[in-house]
């Protein structure tokens, strides 16, 4: 059975002895989101809020928001935040973290932002082993601009810029970001979770906790990819979109931990031969 989720404070009890076991996390603002019905960004936001509460980081966090549907993250999560140019959230976060190493710094990016225009920034931030955490929401489409093809769009998926479906010969195969990031030297934790079912959401939260904790322990770069649905741009109902994640996305984007580094947080431990590319594999 799940423990008390949401607010990190002691569970609330009313006059009749009922216990409030699930509510909005304290670091999440009570405001309706602008997301479409069934959009998984709301779940990802809540998980971020719950973890910030549970790890006691609310007063010590700087969020770096990206461009895309998640652009208004600062409206929903009650922490200090910086808005980065498109794709440049890891570069901005690098600056924030180096100027204020005592702060907890995380970026929240979508696949159009991180895997396309921001590919260089994310690769080099991971390779340098910046002490930051990245939440990467992958819904295989550019959501905010109206459903164009993204680097992660699945083969055969129809979008407004590939109306006949993505063709492997013409546009290449979808990029598996977690596998790429796992092979870079500075990555301390890399995993892929999914937000399509209760079980997967609980597992994704555990991955996010680890990605956050590698930063607080000073081990290196924490990366977590979350498979999410975009019912509006997939032209599906929210329930059908969830089913598509299970049936089509998870077989191509396998879930699990791709890299997990144990160490004391010194550069030496990260550069040790046992953490060299090829030594770690997806489980």
């Amino acid at each position, binding site marked *: 059975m799940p423990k008390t989720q949401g607010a990190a404070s002691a569970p609330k009890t009313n006059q*009749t*002895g009922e216990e409030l076991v*699930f509510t909005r996390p304290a670091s999440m603002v009570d405001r309706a*989101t602008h997301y479409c*019905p069934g959009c998984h960004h*709301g*779940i990802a936001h809540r998980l971020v809020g719950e973890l910030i509460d549970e790890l006691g980081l609310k007063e010590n966090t700087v969020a770096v928001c990206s461009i895309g549907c998640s652009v208004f993250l600062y409206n929903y999560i009650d922490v200090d935040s910086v808005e980065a140019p498109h794709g440049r959230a890891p570069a901005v976060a690098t600056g924030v973290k180096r100027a204020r190493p005592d702060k907890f710094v995380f970026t929240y990016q979508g696949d159009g932002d991180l895997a396309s225009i921001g590919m260089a920034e994310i690769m080099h931030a991971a390779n340098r082993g910046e002490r930051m955490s990245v939440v990467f929401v992958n819904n295989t489409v550019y959501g905010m601009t109206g459903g164009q093809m993204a680097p992660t769009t699945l083969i055969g998926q129809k979008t407004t810029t590939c109306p006949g479906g993505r063709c492997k010969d013409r546009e290449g195969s979808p990029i598996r970001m977690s596998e790429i990031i796992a092979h870079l030297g500075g990555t301390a934790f890399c995993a892929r979770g999914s937000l399509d079912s*209760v079980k997967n959401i609980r597992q994704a939260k555990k991955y996010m906790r680890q990605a956050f904790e590698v930063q607080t322990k000073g081990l290196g770069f924490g990366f977590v990819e979350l498979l999410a649905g975009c019912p509006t741009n997939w032209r599906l109902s929210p329930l059908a979109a969830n089913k598509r994640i299970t049936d089509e996305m998870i077989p191509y984007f396998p879930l699990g931990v791709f890299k997990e580094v144990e160490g004391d947080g010194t550069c030496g431990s990260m550069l040790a031969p046992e953490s060299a590319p090829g030594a770690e594999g997806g489980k």
Partner: protein
Amino acid sequence: MSRITVSEERCKGCLLCTQVCPVTIIRQSERINQNGYKVAEVPAEDMAKCTGCASCATICPDVAIEVWRGKKPKPGSKAA
């Protein structure tokens, strides 16, 4: 006795909660909220079946569901 409360202002009628409920007591109501969405509800007569598992709240993208978990009624009491 457990129960859930659905915030009708926040619910967007995506119905993800209806699929994950282990006792399938959540359904779409005929009430339309200010944003034009038909909100989810648990009929009053079914609320006693709620197990307080919080699956619906876990999958709700809009944090519209609060879960209250009560003490189990004692065997033999009228409430059971």
